[in-house]
């Protein structure tokens, strides 16, 4: 099969039906369809409203702490001996990850729509914490669905969400991980259609979520553009970001899609390896299908049943990916690499030792591929990698993986 043609105008996607090429769409039960259409209208109006944008910008500056720095990782650059490596420091945001960029946008939209109750799903707990945070800030009740297995392995984040006043509901159906939490959040939404706003944490789900979450996360790429022009006087040669659902990645990539000189690399989690059944690389190891409201690449068996993903990083442990990534993959605008648990663990330690930054295990997947990308773009090149979150939440997991008791 030939790759579909690259479009002339990247900003024209998704189309009116929420499609990025063949991907995306609105595959939801009829009960939710009117709500999804209402959300689409409400978001389009808010997006075009300067007062909404100004309010969001104010909270991003004073509450989230934006803009965060673009930092030259000098020792890591020397270590790889190739292109100059910059980190976009999303881990310095309030709550320690990029997730809050999206939550701040969505909570302002939810209030504008008159919704009075927020629900969210979470895997590692980062989106749950960010949701709980904005709900506390604006005084809205929040229920976070979290797989029972994840509740066990991410106890500190469960405690944080509770401290912030949110209720965490453990989900025992299926494998008790992120995809099951998302199913349960959908069930809540379909049951509480009048007052409830579903705050999806990644650039996936029924239209308009993939586009809306991308827009709220695009502040990452927009800041990168301004900051790298200030630091280097030119655009980077490559962008690198880890991809689970893919919200930090699409926020990094989207503002550069039309800049053909900028190479784009996403990094999927290949867990124990692509040849095993324990990985989370939907693009590299999956095929297109429909789940959670959108058509996209999915890990599935030979009968169309969805498989459980595996990654050492709970935030990448999802069998799907945002539909825009599926499209960028098919048209060849972005290249998707894979990184195993072991490679991510090594990168986690390398970053801590060389740069004095403990990265999230998710971000460590991107760090692990910097050597490869640095060789690709050459010594005179410039790379910007999005450091999507900080790794404090992962120290127990990493210690256990390294066989150390803490």
């Amino acid at each position, binding site marked *: 099969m030939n790759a579909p043609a690259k479009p002339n105008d990247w900003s024209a996607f998704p189309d009116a039906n929420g499609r990025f090429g063949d991907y995306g769409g609105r595959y939801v*039960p009829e009960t939710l369809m009117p709500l999804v259409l209402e959300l689409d209208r409400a978001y389009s109006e808010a997006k075009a409203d300067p007062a909404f944008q100004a309010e969001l910008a104010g909270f991003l500056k004073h509450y989230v702490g934006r803009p965060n720095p673009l930092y030259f990782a000098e020792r890591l650059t020397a270590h790889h001996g190739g292109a100059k490596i910059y980190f976009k420091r999303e881990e310095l945001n309030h709550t320690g990850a990029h997730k809050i960029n999206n939550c701040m946008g969505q909570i302002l939209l939810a209030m504008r729509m008159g919704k009075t109750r927020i629900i969210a799903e979470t895997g590692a707990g980062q989106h749950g914490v960010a949701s709980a945070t904005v709900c506390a800030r604006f005084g809205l009740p929040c229920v976070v669905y979290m797989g029972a297995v994840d509740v066990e392995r991410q106890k500190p984040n469960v405690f944080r969400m509770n401290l912030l006043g949110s209720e965490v509901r453990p989900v025992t159906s299926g494998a008790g991980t992120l995809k099951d939490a998302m199913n349960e959040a959908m069930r809540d939404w379909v049951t509480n259609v009048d007052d409830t706003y579903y705050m999806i944490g990644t650039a996936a789900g029924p239209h308009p979520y993939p586009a809306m979450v991308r827009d709220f996360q695009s502040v990452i790429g927009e800041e990168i553009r301004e900051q790298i022009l200030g630091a280097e006087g030119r655009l980077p040669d490559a962008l690198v970001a880890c991809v689970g659902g893919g919200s930090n990645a699409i926020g990094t990539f989207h503002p550069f899609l039309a800049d053909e000189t900028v190479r784009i690399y996403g990094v999927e989690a290949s867990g124990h390896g692509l040849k095993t059944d324990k990985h989370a690389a939907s693009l590299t190891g999956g095929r297109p299908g429909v789940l959670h409201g959108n058509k996209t690449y999915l890990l599935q068996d030979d009968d169309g049943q969805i498989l459980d993903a595996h990654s050492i990083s709970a935030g990448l442990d999802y069998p799907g990916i945002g539909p825009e990534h599926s499209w960028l993959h098919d048209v060849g605008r972005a290249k998707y690499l894979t990184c195993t648990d072991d490679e991510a663990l090594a990168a986690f330690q390398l970053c801590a030792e060389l740069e004095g930054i403990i990265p999230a295990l998710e971000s460590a997947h991107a760090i692990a591929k910097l050597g490869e990308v640095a060789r690709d773009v050459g010594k005179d090149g410039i790379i910007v990698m999005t450091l999507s979150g900080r790794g404090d939440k992962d120290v127990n997991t990493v210690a256990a993986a390294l066989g150390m008791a803490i």
Partner: protein
Amino acid sequence: MTASRIEKRFAALAADDRAAFVAYIMAGDPGLEASFEILSGLPAAGADIIELGMPFSDPMAEGPTIQLASQRSLAAGTKMADVLGLVRRFREADDATPIVLMGYLNPVLHRGFERFAGEAAQAGVDGMIIVDCPPEEADPLSDALEGVGISLIRLAAPTTDDARLPAVVRRTSGFVYYVSVAGVTGVKEADASAVAGPVQRLRAASGLPVAVGFGIRTPQRAAEVARVADAVVVGSALVDEIAGALAAGSNENVTERVLSMAAQLSKAVHLARVRNA
């Protein structure tokens, strides 16, 4: 074109002024042979139409009962080919009772719409309900199903407003399924008095019979709904009998329990309008 099994069945029931009793069970729950036994017994227990669930790993519109049924079926190794095989075997003995497959899009998409439609028609399937395929996304599936004479049965919900109705009933046939409560299957209880208005509205917009489901658990509630709707769908209450029999241990006869519940429900549905008169 000759009348479909669904059309014939509704015409016969209308002549008797009876509502249809639609029984839902999950294919392959608790195992393939056990579910074939239940399926084969349903017409004699009074089921006018059978909805056969296709198991899916991520049934996002189902309550706990059907979720667990889906898990049991997948754990027993049920494949899509087995689901179609059940229909084929059922048709060897029964060429009149309509069978509607109900499930989620991905397993159908994975098999390919054309291929699936062809296999389903050959097996003797009459209709399909795909929960996560709203009319906006349904055209490719409609193309395939129309080509082989299978009805794509549409869902309407309490949230479906007048503006959406034309889109919801476009390219549909057989009957329209009214989801009587905003929620998942088998949890909230349907309110029969709140159902009458939407049923009339849907009948007028589609020109088709209207079935009501989601949240009908008891013979009494089934009878109330049968007075205002053309068909009454019961799923979770039947599947609960399977779960109950399994929990009670191997001495319980799963088939007997399900068919006995089906008989009570069908009796209530079939006599509802007689008593009312």
